[in-house]
């Protein structure tokens, strides 16, 4: 099945799951690819002997001397050099050398890979990007990998590692780069032509370059990637191996349920497959002859999957509070899942406010969710979506969770509720600091129900004073520096002068995509007698200030019907 003129050899670096490594080596060898295996010297000898025994019937398999391969150390480069040297010496017919690991699964038939190499006979497939252009380095170290020294291990000596980096930064220490070396980074897994690899291994400065790279951090991502720029005639900066890293630099692992995605990938090899992903190994390690060539590649799918996983881990779903996501305040700990509206003072002023608002916004409009006696869910339900109870005790036990749950549970439907000084106020700081809240407040409207109650000013005076105090505290809170909610406050006097415009504003704000114009507006309560009620309160010694400069009854004598004047369409 070998393509004329192309013979690929595989250098395999293994450190675990040697049974899978044996299977992979056999697969490569069965398809005419000589294999040189390097096994990390930390693998126990019996396991290594087992691997040798499992492969001893195959003539074209070699083992290079075992070295320790600590992550991020030069040992991996050293092992690669040794194995590659062995490959070039023992198999003179090999024209291309592929570097793979013991868990790199060929996801396309070997003949497809060889055909690809035959189409590009003099091309080196190696990702090689200048340090200025890589976006994926871990720990903020890209250029500094080359200009600082890294004698300590990242994994086991993290404090020394970090401390030594800081010290060098403080001392402004910089290493000098070997002459002619331009640092490049890229995936560890490459496929080079024989002349290129030979030139790298027999570089005239190799001793000096190796000495330099011994103290570079993660040299396996930069040694070949930098040197190839000096010796290669034709580089395609793209790895043939699909290798995805998560935000902490760990490679993603492929499982059986990724099978359909891997079939659509455009790479030839995938790293890394979970050793016990039986379906993957069984599917992709069948002989070439039994395999149909892949369906139309659609590599975007796999990229999207892993991009979404990183986003979920780093950013999460805003407004969700659960067992594995509980952000502090500065990282969205006061945010709910979706925009919602809080209305204070509207319901007393417009008897039909709630049904009207529900129609105008196509939203769920609740009553006073934070009333002392009962949670007033829309429609008077006793349990609401998600199993929220109307019990005020449960709600007040953790009002923040209550509101966050309500908004989360109803994603896709705008929620609105009434809130006023007669309600439980513990939620106020949460609403004020929630960027998703829109708060509309008509100050002083709390006096309307008192006026309507028919009781005398003397009787309600204390209550009116209390409510005024609570409401003015709330308004102060909204003016405070912690407030992230969008707020709009009108005094009662200001509002009744022209009620239509504020109502339009709030509909626009909460339902910006609503294309239709408001055709109807709610009926304003007739306020005759309210002015003298306020005067009575004043006479009783209270100072009702939040209503603004409310007109006396005489001035209200001929109120313009709320929306008589022609409204200008924006």
């Amino acid at each position: 099945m070998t393509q004329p003129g192309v013979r690929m050899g595989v250098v395999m670096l293994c450190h675990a799951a040697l049974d899978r490594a044996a299977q992979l080596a056999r697969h490569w060898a069965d398809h005419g690819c000589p294999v040189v295996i390097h096994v990390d010297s930390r693998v126990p000898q019996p396991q290594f002997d087992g691997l040798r025994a499992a492969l001893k019937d195959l003539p074209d398999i070699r083992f290079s001397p075992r070295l320790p391969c600590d992550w991020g150390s030069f040992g991996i480069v050293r092992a690669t050099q040794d194995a590659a040297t062995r490959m070039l010496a023992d198999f003179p017919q090999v024209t291309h050398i592929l570097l793979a690991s013991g868990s790199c699964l060929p996801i396309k038939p070997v003949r497809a890979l060889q055909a690809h190499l035959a189409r590009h006979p003099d091309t080196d497939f190696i990702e090689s990007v200048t340090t200025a252009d890589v976006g994926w380095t871990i720990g903020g170290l890209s250029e500094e990998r080359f200009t600082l020294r890294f004698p300590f291990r990242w994994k086991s000596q993290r404090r020394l590692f970090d401390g030594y980096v800081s010290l060098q930064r403080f001392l402004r220490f910089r290493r000098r780069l070997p002459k002619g070396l331009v640092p490049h980074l890229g995936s560890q897994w490459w496929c080079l032509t024989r002349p290129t690899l030979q030139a790298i291994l027999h570089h005239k400065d190799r001793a000096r370059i190796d000495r330099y790279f011994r103290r570079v951090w993660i040299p396996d991502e930069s040694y070949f990637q930098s040197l190839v720029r000096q010796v290669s005639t034709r580089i395609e900066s793209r790895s043939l191996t699909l290798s995805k890293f998560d935000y902490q630099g760990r490679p993603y692992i492929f499982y059986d349920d990724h099978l359909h995605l891997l079939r659509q990938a455009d790479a030839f090899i995938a790293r890394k497959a979970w050793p016990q992903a039986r379906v993957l190994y069984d599917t992709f390690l069948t002989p070439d002859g039994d395999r149909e060539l892949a369906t139309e590649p659609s590599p975007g799918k796999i990229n999207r999957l892993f991009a979404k996983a990183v986003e979920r881990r780093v950013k999460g779903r805003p407004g969700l509070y659960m067992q594995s996501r509980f952000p502090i305040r500065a990282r969205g700990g006061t945010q709910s899942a979706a925009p919602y509206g809080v209305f204070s003072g509207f319901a007393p002023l417009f008897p039909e406010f709630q049904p009207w608002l529900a129609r105008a916004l196509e939203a769920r409009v609740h009553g006073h969710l934070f009333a002392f006696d009962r949670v007033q869910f829309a429609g008077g339900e006793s349990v609401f979506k998600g199993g929220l109870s109307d019990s005020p005790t449960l709600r007040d036990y953790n009002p923040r969770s209550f509101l966050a749950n309500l908004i989360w549970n109803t994603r896709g439907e705008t929620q609105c509720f009434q809130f006023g000084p007669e309600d439980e106020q513990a939620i106020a700081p949460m609403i004020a600091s929630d960027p998703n809240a829109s708060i509309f407040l008509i100050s002083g409207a709390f006096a309307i129900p008192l006026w309507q109650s028919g009781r005398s000013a003397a009787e309600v005076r204390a209550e009116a004073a209390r409510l005024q105090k609570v409401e003015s505290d709330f308004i102060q809170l909204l003016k405070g520096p912690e407030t992230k909610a969008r707020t709009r406050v009108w005094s009662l006097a200001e509002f009744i002068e022209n009620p239509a415009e504020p109502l339009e504003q709030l509909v626009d704000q909460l339902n910006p995509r609503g294309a239709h114009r408001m055709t109807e507006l709610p009926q304003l309560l007739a306020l005759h007698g309210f002015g003298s009620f306020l005067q009575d309160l004043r006479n009783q010694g209270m100072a009702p200030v939040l209503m603004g400069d409310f007109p006396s009854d005489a001035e209200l004598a001929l109120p313009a019907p709320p929306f008589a004047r022609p409204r200008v369409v924006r």
Partner: protein
Amino acid sequence: MGLTTILRLRTRRQYLLVRAFRRRRQLTPVADRTADLPAQPILLFSTVRNERMRLPYFLTYYRRLGVDHFLIVDNGSDDGTRDYLASQPDVSVWSATAGYKQSRFGMDWVMHLLRHHGHGRWCLTVDVDEFLVYPFCETRPLRALTDWLDSAEAPSFAAMILDMYPKGAMHEQPYREGQNPFEIAQYFDSGNYVISRNPLYRNLWIQGGPRARLFFSDRPKRAPAMNKIPLVKWDRAYAYASSTHMLLPRRLNLVYDDQGGEKPSGVLLHAKFLDTFAARAAEELARGEHYAQSAEYRAYREGISRERDLWCNWSEKYVNWRQLEILGLMSKGNWA
């Protein structure tokens, strides 16, 4: 402040370890098969009492997920539980006749076993009515999860309790041995869980679900905790501080991200509310061997007699783990 807290928690942890050690003699091995464990086994630890009927499905469920061995303490069963367990090839059984309450509700016994057999291994500590669901659990065995947690250097994995209940009264659909309990208890509350942070132990304290909604609506503080950390790569220095709700050292409790991201987490489906429950509640109340003077069971008895149906209009019907993920009860985190 910092140092005293550290010392205080350290003392607490050592106290728990000593406690577990001193109660080791209360355990009598009935069938100890731990000598033949494979390398790096995944172990399951549990305490049972009269669970003969539930055990077959429990064992099947966790065998299918890839638990290699079960280490179970039998606390004085008289319904054949012990003999049944002893006859299973992958179960080791110890018998304990001392009080459940005096042994910290079985945790002392389990911790002794954890210390003895769990060191350096992935250990799942659950009750017989708790069924672990984790991301991709239909296609990936538990070993895939623990391997991934190993590579992520995460020593513990959160799975909150999710109370499952049937539609209609509990006694209407009797549970048969070997049956999947969630064929009966199909429903759960999807979004009424309240969360606060425990500053001392740094874990999240989660309460809610149908129990809080119906039985504890007038004293929510006493509603049972739903947060659990059942899967831990155990070390002999670790201790469960309160059931499996929280651990010491407290870094193990940091199973959540406080920077806005989501860590992977699962759910323990709780098959408590079946026809066996009412009888159980009466029995446990008489025994008085449960947490806080069995306040929970007392509340149930009152609640159950008043309102037998836990189901409501907004109850969610269980489909699979993806549903729980979308509802925000668990997360894939960056496991893809």
